[in-house]
């Protein structure tokens, strides 16, 4: 199914030129909690328009890496640059405003609000008016809100969630919530999209839909994507490059076909099982 709705027109700032160089540069990043070192001396770069996957067993530090990129955590040592900014001193909402959107491993939607309102919240930073103008509801405020609704409707169409648009998110089935969360991230017109286990807990059909959305977002909008995922089949199918973490450390970083055969990966991550076999059992 091709995109029949003009997402590129609806989300223009995803089309803006990226700063030169990699979108993400992690340089020898370490993150220690009391007692646990979640990320140990990790370095990697993500190129513009790349679909970059991070895999590894539970507790390997994948989500922690996302939290370092999005500013929820600050590195204990090392440096992290995102879209040309040194994010080590930036607050999460400031990083979000540079064009970084994310979904969460355990869906974090505003359950007490409707689907449309959730997507509207993703649009916050694209509404350029202040509290004073909002209080007076100036013409500019009204125009901004109308234009904004159109973007949200385009995303609702793209994700095929028209029938749920006015439903309270908390009442929706899990698979639909995953989609809504992707929609909210997309509404931010991100330049970098972080997807934490986007197909976890989904059935085959839902997984295939989600995979197509992810590819469309990358191909049509040119958004750089970092995806944490356990579904090896999906990772091998979609990713341009795969970073493999184990106990917080990088054990491989290459194209899927190479990573798949990497002895260290097979040994450490899969306990000897061949990845190709795993893919077959999906």
């Amino acid at each position: 199914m091709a995109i029949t709705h003009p997402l590129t027109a609806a989300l223009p700032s995803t089309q803006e030129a990226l700063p030169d160089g990699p979108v993400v540069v992690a340089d020898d990043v370490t993150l220690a909690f009391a007692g646990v070192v979640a990320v140990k001396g990790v370095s990697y770069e993500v190129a513009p328009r790349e679909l970059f996957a991070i895999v590894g067993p539970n507790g390997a530090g994948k989500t922690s890496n996302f939290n370092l990129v999005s500013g929820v955590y600050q590195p204990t040592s090392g440096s992290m640059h995102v879209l040309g900014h040194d994010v080590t001193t930036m607050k999460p909402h400031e990083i979000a405003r540079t064009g970084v959107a994310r979904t969460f491993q355990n869906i974090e939607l505003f359950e007490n609000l409707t689907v449309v309102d959730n997507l509207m919240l993703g649009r916050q930073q694209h509404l350029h008016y202040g509290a004073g103008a909002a209080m007076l509801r100036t013409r500019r405020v009204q125009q901004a809100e109308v234009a904004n609704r159109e973007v949200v409707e385009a995303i609702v169409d793209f994700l095929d969630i028209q029938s749920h648009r006015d439903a309270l998110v908390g009442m929706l089935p899990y698979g639909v919530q995953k989609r809504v969360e992707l929609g909210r991230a997309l509404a931010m017109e991100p330049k970098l999209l972080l997807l934490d286990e986007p197909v976890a807990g989904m059935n085959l059909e839902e997984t295939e839909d989600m995979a197509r959305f992810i590819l469309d977002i990358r191909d049509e909008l040119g958004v750089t994507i970092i995806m944490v995922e356990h579904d090896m089949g999906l990772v091998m199918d979609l990713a341009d490059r795969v970073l493999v973490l184990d106990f917080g450390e990088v054990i491989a970083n290459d194209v899927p076909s190479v990573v798949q055969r990497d002895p260290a990966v097979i040994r450490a991550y899969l306990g000897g099982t061949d990845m190709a076999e795993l893919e077959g059992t999906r």
Partner: protein
Amino acid sequence: MTTFLQAVVSGLALGTIYALLALGFVIIYRATDVVSFAQPALMVFGAYWAMYFATVIGWNFWVAVVIAAVLGAVMGAVIERLFLRPLVGRPVFSAVMVTIGLDIVLRVIVDDLLGINQRTMGDPFGLQTVNIGGITIPQSDLAAMLGAILVISALLVFYRTTKYGLAMRAAAFDQEAAMAQGIPVGRMFGLAWALAGSMAAIAGTFISMGNSSLSRSTWVFALRALPVIVLGGLDSIRGAIVGGLIIGVAERLVAAYQPGAAPWLGAGFELVVPYIVMLVVLLVKPYGLYGTAEVQRV
């Protein structure tokens, strides 16, 4: 009939002021999950500013009201930043206790500024009345009603149709997710407090004008907004408005009829009415008229 209509109209005037106060509580609650008991102090402080600029400095009363609203907003925002922001992420109970402490401290300060006398607000109404269809309405009631309707409408439009309303709710619901949307969560908390401070200031001014006055005991009035929010539902904007009007009208009807009909209940019985209405509604609807069943997030 005239007595009845007169009581209803004066009840509606009182009710719009209750609604204004109740909205302050509701907006802070919806943005931060905290019931702020600092509203009485903010109300008296706001009224003090209006009185100060209108009578001491001698500026136009309505200019003084606008200044009071702005200073009320500033006070709300500063209080939030200095005393509540450091408690974000801690149990809501601590924040509620802090608001109680703040209320006491601020009222000591404003009591000192006020002195022991009753202060007139410097409004142009005094005891003048207007006669509409045989009902005599104090001009100050009419002005308070119109003013409150204006402020509440502006707030509703702001809250319902602009990005700030949604952002404030999102900030309360899930701070991490809100920040991931680029929402400056702390600033949304500040905004909620600023709005509440401003509305408290206007309510305090309106309740003290006309044949009333501003004094050290004016703060008690703000406590009568508590039955209003419990009646309407802690997290409901509509509830604050409807609840305010119901309690305002009930109070004035009782004031008009009870001394004749049931004198044995004693003088000033109407002041108990808000609490009685609240208790009766709670028996039937524990979350208030419009409150959501699970207002408390776990």
